């Protein structure tokens, strides 16, 4: 029988909550600034442009060429990255608590999500 009573301490809860909150704030700040910037610059590309998702590899070059919609899309990317960063924060929290079993489980979860992402985005072909 496995007895994992009182297994997640305050640090783990705080780390997870803080990372999720920071990720959401950064994401929505980028999206809001991008949207306001786009509106103030006369909505280039028309209404449809703001609703279209930019390919991920176009975001940085477009941002460097001062395209406001690239900032909006960067916000989307930040929101997507938030779960990954939360996993890293959990890994660090478990590591700091020297809870190696839970740190290993967290690392395994990260690896599974990364592999799944690679398969579903077509980076790795299964069939």
């Amino acid at each position: 029988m496995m007895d994992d009573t009182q297994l997640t301490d305050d640090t783990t809860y705080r780390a997870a909550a803080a990372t999720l909150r920071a990720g959401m704030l950064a994401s929505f700040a980028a999206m809001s600034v991008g949207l306001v910037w786009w509106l103030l610059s006369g909505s280039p590309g028309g209404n449809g442009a703001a609703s279209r998702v930019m390919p991920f590899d176009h975001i940085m070059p477009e941002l460097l060429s001062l395209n406001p919609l690239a900032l909006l899309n960067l916000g989307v990317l930040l929101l997507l990255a938030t779960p990954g960063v939360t996993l890293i924060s959990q890994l660090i929290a478990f590591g700091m608590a020297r809870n190696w079993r839970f740190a290993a489980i967290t690392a395994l979860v990260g690896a599974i999500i990364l592999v799944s992402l690679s398969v579903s985005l077509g980076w790795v072909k299964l069939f």
Partner: protein
Amino acid sequence: MDPVAIAGFVLFGLAVGTYGTLIGAGGGFIIVPVLVLLLKWDHTQAVGTSLFVVMANAASGSVSYLRQKRVDIITGLQFAAATVPGAIIGSFLVEQLTGRVFNIIFGSILVIVSLYLMLRPGKPESHQISTDKPQGIKGWGWTVRRIVDARGSIFNYGFSMPLGILLSFGVGFLSSILGIGGGIVHVPALVTLFDFPAHVATATSHFILVFSTATGTATQLSLRHVQLGPALSMAAGAIVGAQIGGALSSRVKGRWIVRGLAGALTLVGLRLIIG
């Protein structure tokens, strides 16, 4: 998008975020039918946009639940690890499993389960739940948890970890078939089959959704199945709604949360039966 449409999507997101977070679901079971049936959206665009909102809702709701210390973090991570591959395999088999007969059978099962949950919404909260190891398959990989939340309420419960992982794999699989996040299947199963206290089940399910929807959302974004304008408007509402739902959760008894879930299951079941 005109301002009235934006306001409508924000308010809709607010309602979905509140109800979804209260019952531990992301809200895809409401968003997809509304976009497809009422607004006549293409199904793929509706599912992609819905997943984006579910992810934002789950992240916001999880912050609220983590603050309340009701999330079983390590169990949530292990279940998330099983849900994601289940969803991927489900996405490969979705064509074979979404025929009319399958939908009617599965929809009917969901409606029957929801009726059962409405009549027998589970045990009274936490303290009477035994953590003694049961005999047979239920005791396989027996795991005991003790969670003390921010208000000092104590939740003791025990469950079979391998069976929980198997369940989560199944939930991921079904979420791909049904085009939803999976919370409305995960929570009732955790409460009725695994003796999780309802409040811990909803909070943990929401935490799982953060990770399980990330892969799907990334895929939908790369396929350009997300309508960013409506998605962001609904997500903005859902983020605020999730905080309201999380706060309401501490004031609502577990039995009523399960009954709320039963209502959601009925909606999904009827949608499958009607087509």
